[in-house]
């Protein structure tokens, strides 16, 4: 970075600090400063112009030291930019790195590159019109989480909000998705916004330990940093994502989380004496998120799948920021605290989750399975109130209870577990066809886990499973196909290791022969029948 005298001489303009108000600085001078422009203090600190009036310039300070009144300021005549390169892969970029090394003010060379071939100098907060470069979302994005891949599918280039209370498994889901995508060669950029140092340390260890570091960039701002710097974190992450997108790569960008980001922006704007609007947020809070997320999407050359995280409070989805984010994104996955309390992992509520473009990326079979499963689970939820009648219920209803519990058990998944999508389909088929009849849930889980491990290790088995998953287009054909492959799935020799000598069966009702057909579970419940 050039020094203070260089910029002073270049722009021939000077300003002086009048007032220091936390991280906001008011100065006079700098007659041609413009909003977003980087300014340099003679003591070495960096700031950027927030707003202007005829009396003073309002500057957000990015550097930690306190600036004194009277210190000279120089314009740089450039927007906040940063160097981005392939070397970022595997790096953890913290706030200190951002401030010292990343925010670059060097003069861009004629070809737009600096310091060699693979380094770009890019504006951090830009809003270029890229609408003409967008293309339809057609490719599914595998998360490795069964309930999401089946019921709330995400497409490559989609912007899907992850919404839920604190500690409901949002971050676990995000890490599962990153592991899945990184293993597939996708570039993953994770922005941790204003989190504690402990949390940042934990995430850093995760990225290093999972052997995926060569595919990931971790950008973290500490909650102890300057508010202006925390505010810029998601924009920095988006800039990094755009760099890889422009190389034609698929990028997964996680912004964790934007409600915290909004809170920091509110703090910054209240310090700057902006008029507070709803919940004391400034009037442009929607715009700052919309202009960020508009930079994601599926492009003719590369894609940025954006997963912003939003935090709700006591399950309230109607919060200001939450509804803003819902309206900006292409759907949301809701992590329900009630489901979490019931012990469901991941606690995704498929009925309140929305995916606006995900289904169009699915195969006809996956789409039909998703719809069938959703309808069945909706029916299962409805008949929960009759559960206490137990044996008084007819066989059809009892079977719905039995199969519903099996499916819930099937959708449960450890935070460390990743299930490839073809395996998810085949395992669903196995459950739906009622393999392992009357086996306890825990035993079935062991079988599922063993088959998933086998899929990852045995390429022959993997190929057979892939064939089954792609062979059929209709659910009925698929289930028939699965039944024919019972030896491969239910009686696979690998399961012998986890089969107990004499597995005690659960006490479910004996399913009727029709119950295992593909149509019976999807039929709506007859209310009269239910009343009996």
């Amino acid at each position: 970075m050039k020094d203070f005298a260089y910029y002073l001489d270049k722009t021939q303009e000077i300003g002086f600090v009048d007032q220091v108000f936390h991280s906001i600085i008011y100065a006079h001078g700098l007659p041609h400063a413009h909003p977003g422009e980087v300014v340099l203090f003679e003591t070495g600190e960096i700031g950027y112009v927030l707003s202007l009036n005829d009396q003073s310039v309002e500057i957000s300070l990015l550097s930690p030291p306190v600036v004194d009144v009277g210190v000279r300021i120089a314009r740089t005549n450039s927007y906040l930019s940063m160097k981005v390169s392939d070397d970022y892969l595997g790096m953890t970029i913290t706030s200190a790195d951002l401030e010292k090394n990343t925010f670059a003010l060097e003069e861009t060379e004629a070809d737009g590159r600096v310091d060699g071939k693979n380094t770009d100098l890019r504006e951090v907060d830009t809003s270029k019109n890229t609408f003409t470069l967008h293309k339809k979302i057609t490719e599914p994005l595998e998360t490795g989480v069964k309930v999401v891949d089946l019921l709330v599918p995400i497409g490559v280039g989609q912007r899907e909000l992850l919404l839920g209370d604190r500690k409901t498994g949002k971050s676990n889901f995000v890490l599962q998705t990153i592991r899945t995508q990184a293993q597939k060669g996708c570039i993953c950029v994770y922005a941790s916004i204003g989190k504690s140092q402990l949390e940042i340390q934990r995430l850093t260890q995760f990225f290093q330990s999972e052997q995926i570091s060569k595919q990931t960039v971790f950008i973290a701002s500490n909650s102890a940093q300057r508010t202006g710097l925390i505010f810029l974190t998601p924009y920095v992450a988006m800039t990094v994502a755009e760099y890889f997108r422009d190389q034609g790569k698929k990028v997964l960008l996680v912004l964790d989380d934007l409600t915290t980001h909004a809170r920091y922006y509110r703090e910054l704007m209240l310090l700057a004496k902006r008029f507070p609007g709803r919940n004391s947020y400034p009037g442009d809070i929607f715009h700052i998120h919309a202009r960020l997320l508009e930079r994601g999407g599926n492009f003719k050359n590369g894609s940025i799948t954006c997963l912003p995280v939003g935090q709700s409070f006591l399950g309230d989805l109607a919060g200001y920021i939450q509804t803003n984010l819902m309206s900006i994104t292409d759907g949301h996955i809701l992590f329900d605290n009630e489901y979490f309390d019931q012990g469901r992992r991941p606690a995704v509520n498929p009925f309140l989750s929305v995916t606006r473009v995900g289904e169009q990326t699915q195969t006809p079979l996956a789409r039909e399975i998703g719809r069938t499963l959703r309808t069945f689970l909706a029916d299962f939820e409805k008949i929960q109130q009759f559960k206490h009648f137990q044996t008084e219920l007819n066989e059809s209803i009892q079977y719905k209870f039995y199969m519903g519990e099996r499916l819930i058990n099937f959708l449960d998944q450890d935070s460390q577990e990743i299930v490839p999508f073809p395996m998810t389909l085949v395992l669903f088929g196995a459950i739906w066809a009622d393999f392992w009849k009357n086996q306890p849930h825990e035993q079935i889980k062991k079988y599922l886990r063993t088959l998933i491990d086998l899929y990852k290790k045995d390429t022959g088995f993997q190929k057979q499973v892939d064939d089954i998953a792609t062979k059929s287009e209709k659910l009925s054909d698929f289930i028939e196909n699965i039944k024919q492959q019972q030896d491969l799935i239910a009686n696979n020799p690998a399961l012998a290791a986890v089969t107990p000598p004499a597995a005690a069966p659960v006490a479910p009702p004996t399913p009727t022969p029709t119950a295992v057909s593909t149509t019976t579970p999807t039929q709506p419940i007859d209310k009269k029948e239910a009343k009996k």
Partner: protein
Amino acid sequence: MYSELLDQLMTVDDVEKLKNEVEILRSAVFKLGKKNEDAFEQTLKNDVRTWVAEAIRKILADQTVDKQKFLQDLSEELKKLKPVQITLASQPSQALLEKMHDWLNVQVHPGILLDIQYEPAILGGMVIAADGKYHDFSLRKKTLEVLEKTNI
């Protein structure tokens, strides 16, 4: 009305001194008691420079001038004066200061104040910063330019 006072001001330091004196006088005006007049006169005598006191006495001799309003307006007028920061390589003489002040007030804008900074590193010439504009007419800059051109 204020010209007698303002014409005497050349540098930012002068203005700061006068501002302080005006503030002291304003607080003396608001002192309660029958001896208000004496308190103000005593402040003029003890806490204010002689030439300032004389100029103020002269203005306030006119009975139509309100003391409180006069001091408030004077304070506002002082805020309007525009400082020009001039960095020199050596301490300027009083004669040079006066010359620069007179030239700027006639040729550029009336009511300009000098904010003189001393910086030997500029070698010679001057660096001017005013109203957000910055111009480096120093010998250091010229020397560096010449050295750069000649690749020395």
